[in-house]
């Protein structure tokens, strides 16, 4: 790989990283702050893409973004109601919604599993027209992604310091303490999931419009990819305030895409993306677990070496 290749490569990684950063920021809110693993992410991402595409095709490029976010809020609301008011376990609620949304998404696309936006006017085509002929005419995707991510990061760093934001963070930290502060943790969970899913849907909408097509699989595996990026980001910015950690999530998304893009250049097949993201999540979650167990494993190995049977040891 020579240096001339690096420019476009970086740009692609940056673009894709920023688009997925919206979902990573959604998980930053739901997973890191609210401590809810929201498995409806895949379905919500696809729904945002579908709704955004349908509205854009009908001739409303700006409205499509608002519509996508709106449907994300609705999706998050349903997942939250299932787990807070209807006794459905949190993980199961996400899976159920995800499955249901598959049918709904096909219905939204008008009984199709693929929509083409080649001739559709979107925010991307609009900006492209504006930038036509200038030196940055190629960067229109990057600019829109950058604007969206910046807005979300600024919003989060404002919101998570408000009293409502504090209550959402405390819900993930210690729900008992939230109750004793006279706040209903069900309420904070609902608000948190509505907001996070609006970001997820926005991510889906923008990705679909930037690649001018949407298919029913656009969101599959998104939750694992975003989680991998989030965990990379937390490793990069483990210490620091709310804003720095949000920026860390964006950097994590970028690093993930960069590594992936480089791997593609070295002829890794594209279908490996999801396996790689699964492995990253496993390593990031199991790593600390094994690190904690390491002293115990060492001791039991030492005992075995001395010929003493390690059976019956306390299991940590």
């Amino acid at each position, binding site marked *: 790989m020579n240096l001339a290749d690096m420019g476009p490569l970086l740009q692609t990684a940056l673009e894709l990283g920023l688009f997925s950063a919206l979902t990573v920021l959604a998980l930053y809110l739901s997973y890191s702050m609210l401590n809810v693993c929201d498995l409806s992410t895949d379905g919500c991402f696809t729904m945002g893409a579908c709704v955004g595409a349908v509205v854009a095709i009908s001739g409303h490029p700006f409205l499509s973004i608002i519509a996508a976010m709106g449907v994300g809020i609705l999706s998050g609301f349903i997942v939250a109601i299932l787990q807070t008011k209807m006794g459905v376990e949190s993980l199961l609620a996400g899976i159920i919604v995800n499955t249901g949304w598959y049918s709904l998404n096909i219905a939204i696309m008008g009984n199709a599993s693929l929509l083409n936006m080649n001739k559709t006017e979107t925010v991307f085509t609009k900006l492209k027209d504006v930038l036509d002929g200038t030196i940055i005419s190629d960067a229109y995707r990057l600019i829109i992604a950058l604007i969206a991510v910046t807005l979300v990061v600024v919003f989060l760093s404002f919101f998570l*310091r408000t*009293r409502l934001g504090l209550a959402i*963070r405390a819900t993930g930290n210690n729900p008992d*303490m939230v109750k*004793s*502060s006279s*706040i209903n943790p069900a309420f904070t969970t609902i608000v948190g999931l509505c907001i996070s899913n609006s970001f997820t849907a926005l991510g889906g909408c923008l990705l679909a419009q930037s690649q001018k097509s949407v298919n029913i699989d656009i969101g599959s595996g998104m939750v694992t990819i975003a989680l991998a990026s989030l965990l990379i980001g937390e490793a990069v910015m483990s210490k620091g305030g709310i804003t720095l950690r949000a920026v860390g999530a964006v950097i994590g998304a970028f690093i993930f895409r960069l590594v992936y893009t480089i791997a593609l250049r070295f002829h890794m097949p594209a279908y490996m993306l999801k396996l790689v993201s699964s492995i990253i999540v496993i390593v990031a979650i199991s790593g600390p677990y094994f690190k904690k167990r390491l002293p115990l494993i060492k001791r039991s190995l030492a005992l075995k070496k001395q010929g003493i049977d390690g059976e019956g040891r306390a299991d940590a």
Partner: protein
Amino acid sequence: MLRLSHVSKTFNPGTVNAKQALTDLNLNVNDGDFITIIGANGAGKSTLFNAIAGSFITDSGQIILDDTDITLMPEHIRAHRIGRLFQDPMRGTAAGMTIEENLTLAAGKGGWLSHIDRKQREEFREILSRLDMGLEDRMKQPMGLLSGGQRQAVTLLMATINPPSVLLLDEHTAALDPAAADKVLKITREVVRQEHLTCLMITHNMESALSTGNRTLMMSDGNIVVDVSGEERDRLQVEDLLNMFSEASGKKLDTDRILLKEGGK
């Protein structure tokens, strides 16, 4: 001001593990009472607090607080008027959030989208300095960095920052080392006195049960078997209390976990 009439609660009803935790319990707490509660493990002390705070809804009976029937009221709404501390110092605060963020949530002032302002910070700094633990200079540090005693002291501030109608203390010094326990108990007495709080305190220390507050309850098998206050209580020694207990409940108090005297001497 707090009245429980004929309150019962059975856990796991209809199974072999069924346990009647509260049995037709009646209690009338007067305004300004500082009640200490003793009893063996499983006597129903914490269950009584759970019933008052709303951690579960009782099977029968009625709970009245300040002329309002709170029997069926959800826990977080009761929390407006009921403050509570647990034995575990971790339970009352959010470890990952800073001291001032914890206090902000407890204070509950301002709109949902309001930020901590300077005036509020000054207030927090002032009440933290009363603890005399140097916490007023650590307001931006995460709660998780504090010792158990410090966390419990801050939890006490959080529970009383909006003076509650009744404060429930569930062995809140039991998990602390003796020095920290003394300090937290001292702060507790001060706060209760300054804010004229009505307070119920579970303790396993018989001596401090008699020396703290104005009234002492002993519980056995989900009910209150001894209720002493006033002059009668002032004259009581720990031994008298033990005798009263075995007379009323028909059995000896299981003193395995109960300290008869200061420091268990």
